[in-house]
């Protein structure tokens, strides 16, 4: 006896796994060749369209590519996180659906698509429906200024860093809205915790960004990378090792704040399952729940990408330059986020706020003042 799977099922699973792995490979190749592709498309557009229309089309294509990336990335990240979690706990993780479970996220997504879309009685229907979109919007809009390569950015804003701080705060509104509209005490508690957390952790983030901007002299993310154009060594090296240890501390604080703002462990009290069932998305099901999930993983990638741009030279890499390097470095930081999640226990609410107000903010101020002093002394 035993659990014998039909041969046709195994064949389908193998073929689909091969397709998915090949797709991931193709994805990496596309990212590696992104500068060439963009150049090709740009010349084609400029040859065939008027100047205004070419600009509009280029932005539209950029937006499409970015949205495609952010919607596909969580499929990989969720599988990756489950594998990392499993192996840290000496388990195997998803193994059944496809080769080493590579199709697991697709199966889960398909399941969520077919789930009934339940809106609980007594819920504020309009806000309940609106909330997931606001959360997703907050996470996705930040990608607009994330530079992937030399000139490869959807919107080359001069106030890029300020824009990112501002737009990611939308997530807090969405989460608070979801908690309020659910008509559920756990959801409301989760939403309120999230608001307190996000508002608190914006402050050290902003101070750290201020310290960095005082070294760069610009809020434009491309300028931040240009200031680190020498790679690991040299005069204009990565900010991580400059003004040792001020920028190193700055990176650590920024990373911790990033964890808190994306509601990741050990700061995931808005959705602390042992206390609040599932926090703000307790009442959500089906695709709306999937949107929250999507937003969380997109926000993880955004925060890691920002940290890479600010402290690890963005697409200026240790081995080669380009979008692929940026992608890899960001994935390494995302891995560190997952690694931390399966290492540290969850903080209590008062501990969470104490970490921010008693430790991160004073240290961030010291870093800011120290950066200013060192900068003045050097010049």
């Amino acid at each position, binding site marked *: 006896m*035993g*659990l014998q799977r039909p041969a046709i099922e195994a064949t389908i699973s193998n073929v689909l796994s091969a397709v998915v792995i090949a797709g991931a490979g193709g994805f990496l190749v596309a990212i590696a060749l992104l500068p060439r592709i963009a150049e090709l498309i740009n010349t084609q557009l400029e040859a065939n369209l008027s100047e205004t229309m070419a600009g509009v089309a280029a932005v539209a294509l950029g937006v499409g590519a970015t949205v495609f990336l952010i919607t596909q990335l969580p499929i990989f990240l969720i599988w990756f996180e489950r594998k*990392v979690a499993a192996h*840290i706990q*000496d388990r*195997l993780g998803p193994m059944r659906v496809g080769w080493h479970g590579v199709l697991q996220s697709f199966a889960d997504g398909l399941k969520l698509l077919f789930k009934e879309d339940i809106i609980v009685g007594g819920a504020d229907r309009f806000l309940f429906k609106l909330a997931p979109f606001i959360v997703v919007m907050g996470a996705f809009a930040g990608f607009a200024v994330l530079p992937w390569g030399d000139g490869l950015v959807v919107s080359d804003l001069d106030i890029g860093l300020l824009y990112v701080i501002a737009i990611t705060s939308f997530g807090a509104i969405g989460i608070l809205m979801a908690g309020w509209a659910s008509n559920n005490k756990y959801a409301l508690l989760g939403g309120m915790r999230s608001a307190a957390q996000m508002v608190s952790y914006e402050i050290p983030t902003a101070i750290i960004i201020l310290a960095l901007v005082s070294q760069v002299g610009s809020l434009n993310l491309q300028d931040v990378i240009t200031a680190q154009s020498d790679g690991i060594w040299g005069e204009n090296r990565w900010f991580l090792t400059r003004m040792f240890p001020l920028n190193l501390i700055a990176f650590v604080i920024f990373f911790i704040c990033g964890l808190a703002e994306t509601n990741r462990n050990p700061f995931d009290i808005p959705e602390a399952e042992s206390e609040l069932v599932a926090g703000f998305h307790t009442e959500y099901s089906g695709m709306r729940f999937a949107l929250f999930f999507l937003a969380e993983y997109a926000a993880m990638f955004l925060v890691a990408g920002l940290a890479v741009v600010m402290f690890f030279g963005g697409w200026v890499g240790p081995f080669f330059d380009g979008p692929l390097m940026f992608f890899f470095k960001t994935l390494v930081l995302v891995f560190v986020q997952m*690694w931390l999640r399966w*290492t540290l226990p969850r903080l209590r609410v008062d501990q969470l706020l104490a970490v921010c107000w008693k430790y991160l903010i004073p240290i961030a101020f010291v870093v800011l003042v120290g950066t200013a002093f060192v900068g003045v002394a050097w010049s």
Partner: protein
Amino acid sequence: MKEYFGDLWAVIATVTKGMIVTFSHLFTRNITQQYTSDELPDERWKSAGEIVPKGLLSDRSRMRLHVKIEDCIGCKQCEKACPVDCIDITNEKREKTEAPIFAADGTAIKLKVVQFDIDMSLCCYCSLCVYPCPTDCIVMTPEYEFAETDKTEFLYRFAKEKPTPPVPPAPPQEEKPQPVAAGGS
């Protein structure tokens, strides 16, 4: 002030230590393994021997019951031992005229077991029926995959002998028909 920086140092030290521990576990051998895998994960499982399928179970694992009905002498000790009464045995006397048969250990089988039913949906896998059996004919096998779609499928019928049809009430002149023993099919 001293406490403040002491706390900071404690956080850095403990988080670093914890992260090293979890990172090392990323590359250690997994304790769990795939459900239907043939791989032996650990030395301690290897003592199980060849009766264990897939080499995964301990040698004292208690799974589905099996009855070697050829060895059963119909003593009903297992039926009495069963705490949940999931065993149901009916015996008939063997005719003196039949050739004597013996169990594997030489015990003469004097009864004909016409019903030996075990309801595995009731069984609590306590193994109490296994110990009293004089001929070791009821055993716990390591077979653990026996899910069914219907609850009645869990009633395992081990008896091979057919019960004697009830004797029709006194047919006057005719000779009583000899019950035909259905041999092991």
